[in-house]
């Protein structure tokens, strides 16, 4: 369960963002809707432990994120939160399998090649496991970043504008993949977007104004 309580963030004296309280139950799939500049990215960063809010509390599975030490918070993020960014970004010097091993070891978990095989297979990418990022298409890279986000069976899977640079067909496909993977890995899904095409795919919506 994820809860945010009276969270606000202030970048500067005149630019303050206030966020309404939010409760997300395990396994739910949410849409985080808001225009550019509405604080979507800020909220996502606060939610994932990347940005400490000026005030308020964020709890994931009863862990108060910002009460953890910096090192513990990094580890917690690695183990419990998977993030898919708008632009798929992998470490160029490592191949696909190594990129996934990296995600396991940075989270402080042992290397599990079976799990890597399993995740790549579920995303239909097993045949590319020894390829380097520059050999893959944009769409394939997107799949691998989803694989990386779910590799450690996170509690929370977060996607930031995963569809904004895709055409209708691909946007639909990526959404389907995200929903499928969050169900498969029993992760709570939060998709942040300003993309109206995504709306219909979700029942639960948290809107930023």
């Amino acid at each position, binding site marked *: 369960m994820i809860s945010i309580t009276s969270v606000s963030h202030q970048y500067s004296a005149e630019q303050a963002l206030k966020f309404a309280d939010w409760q997300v139950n395990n396994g739910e799939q949410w849409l985080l809707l808001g225009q550019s500049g509405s604080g979507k990215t800020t909220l996502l960063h606060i939610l*994932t432990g990347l*940005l400490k809010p000026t005030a308020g509390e964020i709890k994931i599975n009863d862990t108060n994120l910002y009460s953890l030490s910096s090192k513990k918070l*990094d580890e917690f993020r690695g183990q419990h939160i998977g993030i898919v960014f708008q632009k798929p970004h992998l*470490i160029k*010097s490592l191949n696909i399998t190594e990129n996934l091993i990296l995600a396991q070891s*940075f989270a402080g978990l042992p*290397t599990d090649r079976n799990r890597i095989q399993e995740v790549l297979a579920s995303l239909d990418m097993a045949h590319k496991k020894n390829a380097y990022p520059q050999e893959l298409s944009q769409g394939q890279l997107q799949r691998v970043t989803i694989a990386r986000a779910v590799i450690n069976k996170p509690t929370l899977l977060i996607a930031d504008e995963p569809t904004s640079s895709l055409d209708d067909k691909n946007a639909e496909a990526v959404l389907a993949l995200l929903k499928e993977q969050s169900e498969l890995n029993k992760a709570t899904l939060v998709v942040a977007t300003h993309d109206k095409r995504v709306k219909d795919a979700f029942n639960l919506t948290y809107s930023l104004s």
Partner: protein
Amino acid sequence: MSPFKISWKNIWSKPLNASLNILLIASGTAILTILLLASTQIEDKLEKNSKDIDLVVGAKGSPLQLILSSIYYIDFPTGNIPMNEAKKLMKSPFVKCAVPLALGDNYNGVRIVGTDSNYISLYGLTTQSGKFWDADLEATIGANVAKEQNLKVGDTFFGGHGLTEMKDEHKDHAYKVVGILAPQQNVTDNLILTAIGSVWKMHGDEGHTEEEHHDHEHGTEANHDEDREFTSLLIQYRSSMAVAMFPMMVNQTTNMQAASPAQESTRLFSLIGVGVDTLQWFAVLIMFIAAISVFVNLYNSLKERSYDLAIMRTLGASKGKLFSLIILEGLILTLIGTLIGIALGHGILHLIGNYQESSQAKMNGLLFINEEFYLLAAGLLIGIVAAIIPAIQAYQSNISKILAKN
């Protein structure tokens, strides 16, 4: 996945940059290694070969040349000294031990040294086979000479006139090898030792052997001694008082000169030292450029990689982990460079040694010395110093800002 592997993979994702850095560090280290090894070996040789010799007396000329020719067997002798005069000095109360030398011949470039049995005790020589020279034309050869010239006990050879080339062989008299020295790790490894009479036989007495026999029979040896000459005398003092008195006496009251190996070696080394210093600074400059190159490389790649590093943070890597990844990259680059440099230094020095003509000053590239660990440490330090600023920047980078920008 180990941090080492991550750093390693990242370094080689840009092979040209990595190679340039390694090349620079290796060049600097190689030059420093060569200088270090060469100067240690030269110093070592200078010291070892002159350790028990307080003074050399020879014909007037350059004192350095006298030392080089009589102790290191490198340069030409300054000339000869009359035996009668030399004998007077040998009997001086200041002198504990005096060894006469007669130089001037060689065998395939190996110097033939005519001397007496005091030479054995002065250098503490021992034989590995055979015996020491005794009669004229008997020769005891150094360990290296036996190996390189393929000579063994019982072999005979002809000496050539001069110090380097086999010109004008003395075909009348053949030397006979009677013994081979155990390796001494000093000049005697590369010498042929014989009785002083052998050298006389080859030269002054050569034309009039008949006459000589004649003279002997008539007991006029005293007159004959007038013509005989040494090349130089190696002298050990009896007391420290001699240090002040004896050289002055020789230089002022006789037609000969006295030169101190300690003084001349120091002078020689200070002459070489200027060149060594210059090269040393040059090498340090290269190392400095290498450090800057590694720094620029890491700093620039950090800009390109800031998003990579941010992603690593989202995957659970701590700030400290990123810091150590960058430091590790600097260390890997400089460690490889330093190791290659040290190996290169040894290789080049060995190559130089193989092409060196003078066997006495031969460099050995296979000797390792403790000071090389300082080079290794210096290399690692450069790696850390060059990587520290980029590493701190990686440590302090604001992940949220970097991710939001893209």
